[in-house]
């Protein structure tokens, strides 16, 4: 599955998000801006839920390129300790079980699983109990 955009996550068996570190201040942002001030840096695979909502209606197309048949999906902000708070989908969780502070791990999921050539987008799912 090809990524929705180049440079968003690493090309590893268990991919990681790629952020950008400000060469001067050390501040980390996501995604990595395409300029010399920031250098790409792989981000932590695990984090905690900072906030979330459920997207209950189909976003307008364009720009939304998800499936025509709409199912509500959670949009979260996930705190990666010491790095930054990133926006991403939440997957593999019942809406009623979502709770701020829950432990999460990074995964990639298809934007439209039924597409002929689906693209992968960043997401997080509940961390497996150690």
């Amino acid at each position, binding site marked *: 599955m090809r990524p929705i955009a180049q440079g968003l996550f690493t090309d590893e068996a268990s991919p990681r998000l790629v952020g950008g570190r400000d060469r001067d201040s050390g501040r980390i942002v996501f995604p990595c801006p395409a300029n010399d001030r920031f250098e790409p840096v792989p981000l932590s695979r695990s984090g905690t839920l900072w906030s979330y*909502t459920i*997207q*209950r209606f189909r*976003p*307008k197309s364009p720009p*939304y390129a*998800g499936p025509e048949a709409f199912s509500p999906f959670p949009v979260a*902000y996930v705190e990666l300790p010491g790095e930054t*708070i990133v926006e991403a989908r939440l997957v593999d969780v019942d809406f009623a079980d979502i709770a701020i502070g829950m432990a999460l791990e990074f995964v990639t999921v298809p934007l439209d699983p039924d597409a002929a050539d689906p693209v992968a987008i960043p997401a997080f799912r509940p961390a497996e109990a150690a």
Partner: protein
Amino acid sequence: MGDVCIIGIGIHPFGRTEGASGVDQGVFAVREALRDAGLEWSDVQFAYGASEAAGNPDTMVDQLGLTGMQFINVRNGCAAGGSALFSAQMAIKSGECDVGLAVGFDKHPRGAFDAKPAEYNLPEWYGDAGYMVTTQFFANKIMRYMHVNGISRETLGRVSEKAFRNGEKAPHAWRRQPVALDEILDAPMVSDPYSKYMFCSPAEGGVALILASEKKARELGIAPIRLKAATMRTRPPGSFEVFAPSIDIERGGSATNIASRDAFEIAGMGPKDIAVAQLQDTEAGAEVMHMAENGFCADGDQEQWLAEGRTEIGGALPVNTDGGCLACGEPIGASGLRQVYENVVQLRGAGGARQVPGNPRAAYSHVYGAPGVSAVTILER
């Protein structure tokens, strides 16, 4: 030097007006404001006009009269109206002019605002993945705020309930039917925790304010409403704004914090001096957060404030006395000026069924918008 004064106000009812363009609604508001001030269009030396999506404001001169006057168009997102007012008062403060106009109007299509990634310096994938949705951001922001500050969903519902109840009493409001708290809470969800009654809608409308120097107001024999402060500010580091793929762990303040702090300082007042406030309420939680961001209460106190009715028209600090954006809808160019219009009505004691009791002397207005802009005014009679 005297204060800049508001000597005339006009409004075209908000909502949906078939057959009237945004410009038409702006012209209507200007004529109302001129009548209110007892002035002719030819008396107006300059104008600042705000519109986001309904054409160039300076085309209004076709209908109002080709007097050769100076007319500057303002586009500044949700702060457009506030920016027009700020600019207009500067022209009078400078001594360059003594009678001018701040006008704003808009006419948006139905449904959520259309936003494209490139307009916000964002990559295309961000829109493809379904994140160019303003309601998502607002919902995420309040979900965090509720968690940290102990605000219940019922409090959000109370804000909407108040808005529709106040809107019923405001002739210029769009939604003028009260809605019961249970119905608000149980309505279909748009973006959790917000149901459909907790978001405002893009709308139409126009507002015009005639400004004058204090000397000019005296000459005209008009009891002036004084513009004690008008500020427009942008965001500091660590704020949480719409369309953010990432935000800093180290949280900072907001554009509102800065605009509010500076406005109070310029006016020589504090939150306790304010008798009525119009706070940006594009969604119910915005009013809740903005109560604290503007310094009227501490984070978390809103739970008790709403439960006790302290922001009702008869409460300690009436907030959004005309129903705010929730009841009036949001025509971007006009929305911030509507708040000032409503404050002038309240300070004149002309609010009728929605009049704040006790002869209010000082009134506060606040707008906030993408990508982290805020405008505040403080009026005094």
